[in-house]
Structures are given as structure tokens and as C-alpha cells.
């Protein structure tokens, strides 16, 4: 029997993995905590701890096994849980008790060996319950005293509009999270996301949570590979856009197939249903693992130059098209992430002033998520942070897409200074925000009504 693959195909695969950083970014196990609710919050937390340890006990070992078997790096194993506000509600507990819940989750994540656990979350796009309010109030301290717990709050949806009371709260929560982790450049904020149109099956941190329509337990896979895409873009330097898009699409297809393979294997080995594959070009600070560099390879001198939004729109769409064909179940966020601190090309462009905050905001209208891992001055008023969240949520609400904000007001630092998080979170120059006040706007409170779904112009 002949080898049913051509040498070119075999070498292409090997090159993608060994030279272009193709990896499975994360296998994320979603765990429902709905059966853990209890009148006593500590009992609920204990039940959550037990359930996570029971269901995810083999997650890391299985991930390592698949990595060895297929020779594809699986960078992270993670857990997402039901938004904790839904579980804590029954207890009527005060915010400081919620922090205890976060500590239990942190211990569970440590026990099973995952580096992040997402779902310290509340969904308040139309309004907040007492449980939601308690959880949101507890977020800054929860992020300061835990290492692995990630928090997110959904403040708006296309169908509900934007809850501006929650947006104002989040301005204060982000500011406080930075203050409580001031000794570490405000790293608490790197684990905190404000969403509009949050998705239920996102495997990527910090915004992952296990949505309420999900099964008891599920395995979702996040695939990455900016380096692989950059390589194909470099191979067609003078191609017209149709050809460029086709080249990206074909590559996205191949990358997503690896996610499908790994997802099915993980599902079979863990005895847990396979949820979705999320192909998101998620950069890391490593050389050749940059989304900014892909845009530059398309012909922009620097990311941030005019044309960046168009280039990103093409990239994001081509990635989605290729991914959608490659997997039975594509989900999550699927597209291109444009975090600043996690992308070497973005860091460089931001440092030299090639890309500004406003250009990043424009690009989020066509990227897969939003304003991500951007350091801003430490003395930024909470109302300004809230107004940034409101702008970003408005982009998501009107365009029927997920948007998010993960800003780090760097304590004690100003424009031009650097924050250093290390590891995958990287480093970032502090970027300037508009200095004029949004306070009176934010103080109005209430809701921005849901937009019309017709008369789209």
C-alpha cells in the first residue's frame, strides 16, 4: 500500500507545527455548576470544587497524551464554569463571601493542574439581580487573592441593549482591580473582561464561561496559528485580494482540521461530549506568532496604518470561512484577536505611535472580539473606563457581534511607560486615552435601548 499523502503535504504539516507555531492553544472543559447551588455559599463552593476535581481530574493527562500521540503542541488546558453569580444567588451572601467561592475555584484549578479557570461571571445585559451585584462587587478582591480565576461580565446584547448601570459599575471594578494588584502592574485586570454579546462556548481566556444552554460537561478546543497564516500571506506578496483571501481560507481550513482531530480525541478519551472548535488567531509574544505581522505582510508598513481595518476584515472573514468548512461544529469567537500586550508586532507599533487607541477601536468593529490587553494611564477616571466599555459594547450591539474590553489602567504609570506581565500576557506600552471627561454621560444610568433589527444602514 502506498503512502496516501504527497511528500509536499507531509512536509507542509511538519513545517506548520515545527516552524510556524501551529498549536492547539487550549482544550477547555466546560463544567456546569448548576447542581452546586446551595443556601450556604461555602457548601456550594465545596460542591463546585468536588465536581470540577471529579470531571476535570484527567484533563491535563489526556491533553498531554494527545500531544504526544499526534505531535501537536497543546499549550493550555483550561476550565470554564457556569457564571458563578447564577450559582451564588440562592445563598443571598455578601460580596466578601463570594471571594471565598473564587478561592475554592482557584484551588480546584490548581488541584487538576490547569492554568486558568473562567466563569467568575455575571450576565447582566438587561439588569442585575442581588446575586449579580454581589458577585460584581467581589470581582476586584477575588482577582487579587486568586491566581487562576478569570472574571467576565456581559453588559449588553443586541437584543437587550446596553445596561449602562453595569457599565458604570465595571468602570469602577476595573479601576479597583488594578489598585488591588498595583504591586504587579495591575495584573488583576488581565483576568477581567467586559462583554457585549458574550458567547456560551468560548474556550479562550479570560472570557470563557460555560453558558446556561450547555450540557453538564463539554470539551471545546481553541486552535491558533498566526505564524502559519503569516507564512502563506508572505508567499503571495503581489496577489490580488481574492487570491490572498483564498490562500488564508485554505490554511485556516487545515489548521481547524487539527482542532477537530484533537477535539474528537479529547472527547473520546474523557468520555465527554465534543462541543466546538474555535479557530482564533490568538497571538503570543513569541517571535512569528503575531497577528499584526500578518496585516503588515499584506502590505502595510505598520499595523495601524490606514488600510489596517480593511486588512483585518479580510483576515477575520477568511479565517471564519476556512474554519466553518473544516469542522462539524465551529463556535466560540472564531476570528482574529488583536490584543496589544500579547503580540510582538502590536507592541512595536504601539510603542512607536503607529497604532493608536482610536484605531484599535475601529479595528474591533471587524475583528473577532475587542479592545484587548491595552495598558492605559493609571490615573484614568473610572467613568472614562466605563465610557470605553460603552463605546465597545455599542459596536458589538449594533453589529450583532461579540465585543469585549480588557483594559489595564497601569497603577502609577503614564503614557510611554511599560507594563510587564510576563509569559503569555506579555508587555505593553501605556497608551493615551482621550483626556476629555465622559463622567456626566456615564452617570445618567439606566439602559441604552436595544437597536432596531431592520432599516440597517
Amino acid at each position: 500500500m502506498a503512502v496516501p499523502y504527497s511528500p509536499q503535504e507531509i512536509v507542509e504539516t511538519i513545517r506548520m507545527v515545527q516552524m510556524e507555531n501551529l498549536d492547539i492553544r487550549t482544550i477547555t472543559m466546560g463544567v456546569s455548576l448548576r447542581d452546586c447551588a446551595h443556601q450556604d455559599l461555602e457548601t456550594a463552593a465545596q460542591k463546585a470544587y468536588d465536581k470540577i476535581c471529579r470531571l476535570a481530574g484527567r484533563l491535563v493527562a489526556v491533553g498531554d497524551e494527545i500531544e504526544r500521540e499526534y505531535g501537536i503542541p497543546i499549550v493550555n488546558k483550561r476550565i470554564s464554569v457556569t457564571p458563578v453569580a447564577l450559582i451564588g444567588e440562592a445563598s443571598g451572601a455578601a460580596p466578601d463571601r463570594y471571594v471565598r467561592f473564587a478561592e475554592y475555584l482557584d484551588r480546584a484549578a490548581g488541584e487538576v493542574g490547569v492554568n486558568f479557570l473562567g466563569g467568575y461571571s455575571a450576565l447582566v445585559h438587561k439588569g442585575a439581580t442581588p446575586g449579580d451585584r454581589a458577585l460584581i462587587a467581589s470581582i476586584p478582591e477575588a482577582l487579587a487573592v486568586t491566581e487562576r480565576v478569570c472574571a467576565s461580565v456581559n453588559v449588553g446584547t443586541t437584543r437587550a441593549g446596553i445596561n449602562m448601570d453595569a457599565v458604570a459599575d465595571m468602570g469602577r471594578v476595573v479601576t479597583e482591580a488594578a489598585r488591588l494588584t498595583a504591586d504587579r502592574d495591575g495584573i488583576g485586570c488581565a483576568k477581567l473582561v467586559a462583554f457585549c454579546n458574550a458567547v456560551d462556548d468560548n474556550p479562550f481566556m479570560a472570557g470563557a464561561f460555560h453558558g446556561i444552554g450547555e450540557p453538564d460537561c463539554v470539551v471545546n478546543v481553541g486552535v491558533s496559528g498566526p505564524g502559519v497564516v503569516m507564512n502563506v500571506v508572505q508567499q503571495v506578496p503581489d496577489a490580488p485580494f481574492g487570491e490572498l483571501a483564498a490562500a488564508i481560507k485554505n490554511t485556516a481550513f487545515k489548521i481547524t482540521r487539527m482542532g477537530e482531530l484533537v477535539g474528537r480525541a479529547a472527547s473520546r478519551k474523557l468520555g465527554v461530549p465534543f462541543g466546538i472548535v474555535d479557530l482564533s488567531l490568538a497571538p503570543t509574544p513569541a517571535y512569528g506568532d503575531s497577528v499584526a505581522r500578518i496585516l503588515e505582510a499584506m502590505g502595510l508598513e505598520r499595523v495601524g496604518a490606514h488600510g489596517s481595518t480593511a486588512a483585518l476584515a479580510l483576515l477575520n472573514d477568511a479565517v471564519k470561512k476556512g474554519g466553518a468548512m473544516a469542522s462539524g461544529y465551529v463556535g466560540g469567537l472564531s476570528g482574529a484577536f488583536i490584543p496589544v500586550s500579547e503580540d510582538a508586532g502590536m507592541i512595536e507599533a504601539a510603542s512607536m505611535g503607529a497604532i493608536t487607541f482610536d484605531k484599535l477601536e475601529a479595528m474591533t468593529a471587524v475583528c473577532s472580539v475587542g479592545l484587548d490587553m491595552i495598558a492605559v494611564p493609571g490615573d484614568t477616571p473610572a467613568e472614562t473606563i466605563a465610557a470605553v466599555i460603552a463605546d465597545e459594547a455599542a459596536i458589538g450591539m449594533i453589529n450583532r457581534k461579540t465585543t469585549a474590553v480588557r483594559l489595564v489602567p497601569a497603577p502609577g504609570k503614564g503614557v510611554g511607560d511599560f507594563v510587564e506581565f510576563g509569559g503569555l500576557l506579555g508587555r505593553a506600552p501605556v497608551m493615551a486615552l482621550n483626556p476629555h471627561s465622559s463622567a456626566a454621560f456615564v452617570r445618567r444610568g439606566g439602559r441604552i435601548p436595544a437597536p432596531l433589527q431592520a432599516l440597517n444602514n
Partner: protein
Amino acid sequence: MPGTTESNRIIVTVIGADRVGIIAGVSAVLADAGANIVDISQTTLREFFTMILMADMSQASVSFDELKRRLATKGEEMGVRIDAQHEDVFKYMHRV
């Protein structure tokens, strides 16, 4: 052994400068491990000698991990790069 996956076949790739004894060296490692060679092809990709070999692991006496380790050691000895991957990786990426 990758026993729980859809097939037990692996693809071994040898890339480097051509020299006497490469095929003999690689097949000896596979034979020792009880892996049955199904097919061998060789070609030159760009300027590099490339040998591609498909083997069946269903009767293998060592784990895939161990075989990969032995192949890598042999590659170092011969001054070539040897990779081994499960066939499913190529099947998923290149065939629908």
C-alpha cells in the same frame, strides 16, 4: 501505542543530506520495535533528501512515545532529522 485512535499507522519522515545507510538505520529501529513498514518513498524537496515511510504499529512491542525517542536518537547519530506522527494528523489536514 495509539490503539484508541482510528488507525495504527504512523508516518515517519527523514529530512537531511543523503548518505549511505539511512534506510537501513531507520528500518532497523522500526523492526526492533515491531513496527511493520507498509511503504517507503523518497524524494528531494528543495535541496533536501526526504524519505517518507508509513508503518503499522498494531503489532508493535513498544509505545509510540518510545519509538519516537528511538528514532530521534537514530537521527542524531546519522545527522538527519527524523519525525514520526500519527497518520490521522495528515488525514485530517489534507483529506476531507
